[in-house]
């Protein structure tokens, strides 16, 4: 198969996203498609985190996963965590970004737990 072909479901979706130094960012929980891009539709962003993931479940489960995630947002913004496709540097077993850990906003729950719970334990 040609190297320039990628099957989104099998080779991109559900893979681990890592920063340039190998820190975990999240999973590729969904992909955003820009339908109006000149020259045909393109992938515009990786969507990651509970809000994007929740939309893939059915019914009550979906509502529950998405709404608990949205409650942690301080801004009231309810859109999923978005990583611009231009930040991607390679796609293999891991989807690697070209930026370091410090350049990315942390996930909401990670930040909340670090501030309110784990960060308060000695040695954290």
């Amino acid at each position, binding site marked *: *198969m040609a190297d320039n072909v990628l099957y989104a479901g099998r*080779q991109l979706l*559900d*893979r*681990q*996203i*890592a920063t340039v130094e*190998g*820190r*975990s*960012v*999240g*999973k590729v*929980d969904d992909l955003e498609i820009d339908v109006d891009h000149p020259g045909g539709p393109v992938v515009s962003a990786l969507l*990651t985190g*509970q809000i994007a*993931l929740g939309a*893939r*479940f*059915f019914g009550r489960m979906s509502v529950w996963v998405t709404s608990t995630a949205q409650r942690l947002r301080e801004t009231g913004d309810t859109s999923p965590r978005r990583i611009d496709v231009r930040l991607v540097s390679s796609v*293999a*077993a*891991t989807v690697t970004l070209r930026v370091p850990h410090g350049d990315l906003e942390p*996930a909401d*729950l*990670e930040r909340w*737990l*670090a501030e309110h*719970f*784990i*960060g308060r*334990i000695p*040695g*954290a």
Partner: protein
Amino acid sequence: MKKLLQVALGVLTAIGGFVDIGDFVTSSVVGARFGMGLAWVLVVGTVGIIVYAEMCGRVAALTKRAVFDVVRERLGVRFALVNLSASYFINLLTLTAELAGVAIAIQLATSVNYLLWIPLVGLVLWLVVWKLPFEVMENSFGLLGLALLVFVISLWKLGPDWSAMLDHAVHPAVPSGEGRPTWWYYGIALFGSAMTPYEVFFFSSGAVEERWGRQDLMTNRLNVFIGFPLGAVISLSIMACSALVLGPLHVQVSHVSQVGLPVALAVGKLGIAAMLVGFFAATFGASLETLLSAGYVFAQYFGWPWGKAAPRPREASRFQTLLLLTLFAAMALALTTLDPVKVTEYSVVLSAAALPLTYFPILVIANDRGYMGDQANGWFSNTIATVYLIIIGVVALVTLPLMLATKAGM
């Protein structure tokens, strides 16, 4: 010594998997009730875990991805969520039993009731996962667990009729007075404990922690070919010791102290001391294995940072929170005086029912050349793996009906 430490991951994985509290007692119960008539199941299970753990280690070395990453990728979010729930629940049950097991080992040495030790054991366990580097953990508990080789020495000292024993093992028959379904039920329990999925969760995550790469494929093979057979040999020795000593006395094994009787008889006090050390290390190792696995499956399903991907605990706050919650839940369950032996027996049988959800995606990914390149499975491992996939499928289908029919081996 360095070479020896390289296989510590495999040894700890196997000892924690094969000779945790449940297997310790199950092997003994089986030995006392069925002699060596079910030894073949352990051999079958050991070959199975070797084949699949080797694939997991190979995938981890080449892609830096552990088993539950693969499960989510190949099964998709919904099926993987079913596996996540089942695996987490089984891990929690096993952890509960192991915590009690560690406390029982201390009770045997101190004569202070095990329930009083559970909070302390929980605290130490948490400190180990909070601060101790992975390598130190696997080296210390893996190697201490080798003290259980005292069962091999005991067996040799008991001087059995080896040829009669082998004959019994290769011509398995259901003993009179035992029902065929009960015989199969215990067979499945042994098979489930040999192939219990937390072994591959732990093993592959450990390989990622140790930053295995393509150059470590040999280390991977050494780990599985030394570690798992070692665990199996200890398990078989426990079974044989029980068959020799406890079987003729018609002892119904229900407590850890009874498992040690043959050792006391054959080697004396020093043997008992070695057994206690080994038992402590094996149950503590299994506690670590199940607690961390509970965290790994969640972190790898949701893509959270875990282990070295997060240099400080606060950078893996979701993973660390989950470990704490899991540990508290297991301690609370253990303090309800649930019988740890029954709890592991159930968790081992339940894990037999959940095996395909973990091993099927591993087999698929190990064959994917887009993922594995030139290290994809060859025909030899594929042939064995396919046979085991069928066995696992059949076992998964019959397990729960058999459990109900035999009232869990009564």
